[in-house]
C-alpha cells in the first residue's frame, strides 16, 4: 500500500514538474541576437508610453522581484523608439540609474531616484494624460522633480561615460527585442524572451523565470 502511494506520489511530482517546465515557442522564445553581458539578469524592456508596462510595473514586477531577488539581478531597459520623448526618457532614466547605483541604492527598489522618476512619468502620462506639449524640457522636469535632481545637475551628469554607456546598451538591444512582440518584454539571462500572452499568473511566471535562469 505504502509502496503504491510512493509510486503515485512520484508520478504526480514528475507530471507536475513536466507541466511546470517552460516550453520553447509557447512560453518563451530564444533571441537570435542575445542581449550582451546579461547572464544572471531579468531584464524588462519597456516604455513610459505603454499601458501594459505601467500595469506590470505597478502590480506584477515588484512581486516577481521579491520572490527572485536572491537569484537574479533585475534591470530596466527603457525603449527609445516608443513615445514622443523616448530618447529623453533614456537619458534621464539612465542618469538616475547610474546615480542610484553610485549611492549604493537598487535603482528598481522603492524610494530610489530612478523608480520615483519612472513612476512620475507613468502616472503623468497614463493617469493624468499629460503629453508634455510644452516640449522635452517639461518631460525631463517631471522626471527630475520626482527624483529630486536639479536640471543643472542632470545636464552635467548625463555626460558621464557610465550614463552614455548605459544609454547605448539600451539603444543597442531594446528595439530588436521590442519588435518581436511589443513591450513590456521580459528577458532572462539576455537570451530567453518570455511570451507575454502566455503568462497566466504570478506563480507560473516566477517558476518559468527560475527555470530559464538555470539554463
Amino acid at each position, binding site marked *: 500500500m505504502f509502496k503504491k502511494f510512493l509510486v503515485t506520489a512520484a508520478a504526480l511530482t514528475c507530471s507536475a514538474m513536466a507541466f511546470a517546465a517552460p516550453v520553447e515557442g509557447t512560453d518563451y522564445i530564444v533571441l537570435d541576437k542575445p542581449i550582451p553581458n546579461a547572464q544572471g539578469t531579468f531584464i524588462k524592456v519597456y516604455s513610459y508610453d*505603454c499601458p501594459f508596462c505601467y*500595469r506590470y510595473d*505597478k502590480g506584477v514586477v515588484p512581486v516577481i522581484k521579491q520572490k527572485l531577488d536572491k537569484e537574479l539581478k533585475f534591470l530596466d531597459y527603457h*525603449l527609445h523608439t516608443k513615445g514622443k520623448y523616448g530618447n529623453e526618457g533614456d537619458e534621464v532614466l539612465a542618469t538616475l540609474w547610474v546615480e542610484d547605483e553610485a549611492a549604493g541604492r537598487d535603482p528598481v527598489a522603492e524610494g530610489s531616484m530612478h523608480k520615483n522618476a519612472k513612476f512620475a512619468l507613468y502616472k503623468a502620462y497614463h493617469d493624468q494624460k499629460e503629453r508634455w506639449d510644452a516640449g522635452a524640457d517639461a518631460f525631463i522636469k517631471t522626471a527630475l522633480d520626482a527624483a529630486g535632481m536639479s536640471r543643472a545637475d542632470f545636464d552635467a551628469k548625463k555626460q558621464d561615460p557610465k550614463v552614455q554607456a548605459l544609454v547605448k546598451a539600451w539603444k543597442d538591444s531594446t528595439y530588436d527585442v521590442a519588435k518581436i512582440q511589443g513591450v513590456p518584454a521580459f528577458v532572462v539571462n539576455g537570451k530567453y524572451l518570455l511570451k507575454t500572452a502566455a*503568462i*497566466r499568473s504570478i506563480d507560473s511566471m516566477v517558476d518559468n523565470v527560475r527555470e530559464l535562469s538555470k539554463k
Partner: protein
Amino acid sequence: MKGFFKDFKTEPMNTLARWQDTREPWLLFAITSVLLVLIAHYVFQDWMHMLPCEQCVYIRYGNLVMALGAFIVAIKPQWIWGKIAGVGIFLYGLIYTMLCSWKLIKIHDAVHSDDPMAMFGLQGCSTDAKYHFGLPLDKWAPDWFKPTGDCGYDAPVVAPGVELSDLQRWFIELYQSTDGWYLIPQWKFMDMAECCMLACVCYAILLIALLWAWVRRDFLTK
C-alpha cells in the same frame, strides 16, 4: 426595395435566394466595410484626434479584405466560382476582424481594470504592425495603417497648436471626459472594439442567411 420587404414577409427564404443573385447585398457589404474604414480614418483619427492602435489598424485591413471579397462576388453574383472565391475572401476578412476585435475588447477591459492580474494571458500593443502575407501596408500608407495609439486607449489626443472648431472641441472633450470612445458615453456603453464586433456579427448573420437561402434553393431542393 419596397417589394423586397413585402416578398420577405411572405416567402423569406426564396426572397433572400433571389436577392443574393443580385449585386445589392454584395455591394452593401463592400460599401459599408469601406465606409467603416473611411469613418475610422477621417472622422475618428483625423477629426477627433483618436490614434489607431495595433489592433485597430488590423481591423481596418480586415474590413478592406471583406470589401474586396464582396466586390468580387458583386462582379457577377450568379457566377458560382466568383461567389465561392469572394465569399471565401470575405469570410477570411470577417473572421480576422472578429479575432482582432475580441482581442481588443479584452485588452480594453484589462487596461481599464484595477486588477493587475486582468492582463494575464494578453499582450500589449506591438511597436510594429505585422500584417498577414507580410504586407507592408504600414510602409505604403502609414497614415492609414501605422499604429500610433496604445491598445485599449482611444481617448482623443490633440497635438499642440491644432485649431479646433466648436463642434470638434465638444466631441473631443466629451470622449476625453469618459476616457475613450463609447457609443453611449454617459453609460460607457459599447466601446469601439465592441462596436466593431457588433458590426461583424451583423455581417455574419446576413451572410449566413443569404448563403443558406442560396444553398437551399440551388443545391438542396433540386
